[in-house]
């Protein structure tokens, strides 16, 4: 029996108000997020860009503001969900927390990208090039916060998704346990270069994601 507290009691009426609000939120999200991208692109294009310059300080303010505006509008649109099936409160909570983790990671990724970008080395973010201590600490803190939020999100997943996560972590652990010592031994015999933590990371994490998504959506 449906009660007033039943999440299906209000069954997503597509009133004119809902449609108008959806369109408005979609536009704000699109404008906000594209401005954020443009701000970053501008920082890349400008020669001799420096964070402590007037331009750098404007970027440090403009980028997160655009991100917050666009991200908030997108979040509002996801809450309104005018397009499809209803979502259980638990699922909505999980997705919201994951989105929060992504929002934490995006600025850190952009800062890392811009600080390591050069026309000679466009993918410097993936290299072992030097970083300033401030950027390094900011990136580390952002990563720790994002991982904590994702762990918080995992806590409220349903049992099916929890099983998917268990399998993905078992897979990741198996890859790490198997590959790391083998690579280390091979490096000691000069059969392979020295083990690289980020190579292991990029081998493990996408595989874990594929396993989790496969199990969840098969």
């Amino acid at each position: 029996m449906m009660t007033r507290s039943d999440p299906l009691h209000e069954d997503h009426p597509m009133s004119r108000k809902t449609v108008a609000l959806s369109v408005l939120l979609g536009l704000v999200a699109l404008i906000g997020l594209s401005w954020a991208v443009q701000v970053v692109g501008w920082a890349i294009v400008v020669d001799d860009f420096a964070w402590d310059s007037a331009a750098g300080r404007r970027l440090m303010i403009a980028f997160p503001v655009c991100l917050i505006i666009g991200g908030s509008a997108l979040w509002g649109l996801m809450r309104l969900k005018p397009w499809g099936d209803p979502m259980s409160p638990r699922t909505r909570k999980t997705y919201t927390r994951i989105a929060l983790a992504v929002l934490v990671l995006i600025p850190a990724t952009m800062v890392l990208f811009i600080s390591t970008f050069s026309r000679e080395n466009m993918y410097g973010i993936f290299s072992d090039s030097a970083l300033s201590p401030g950027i390094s600490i900011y990136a580390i803190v952002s990563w720790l916060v994002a991982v904590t939020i994702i762990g918080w999100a995992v806590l409220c997943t349903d049992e099916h998704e929890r099983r998917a996560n268990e399998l993905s972590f078992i897979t990741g652990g198996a890859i790490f346990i198997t590959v790391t010592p083998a690579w280390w031994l091979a490096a000691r015999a000069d059969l392979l270069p020295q083990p690289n933590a980020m190579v292991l990371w990029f081998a493990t994490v996408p595989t874990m994601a594929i396993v989790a998504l496969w199990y969840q959506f098969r």
Partner: protein
Amino acid sequence: MNNRLKVLRAERNWSQAELGVRLDVSRQAVNAIETGKHDPSLSLAFRIARLFNIPIEEIFNDDQE
């Protein structure tokens, strides 16, 4: 494990997402249970039985007989 979840859902004209909302699980979880790819936990099985107001044994069958 076999189950009659899809039939029971169809009788009430609920989508998988709607059933998921009522059980507080994702649509994917409902789909996985209906297709036999995931056996629900005891607590979820009891919630399903309470939702449809029928005994668990009339919903789930492990074909052990």
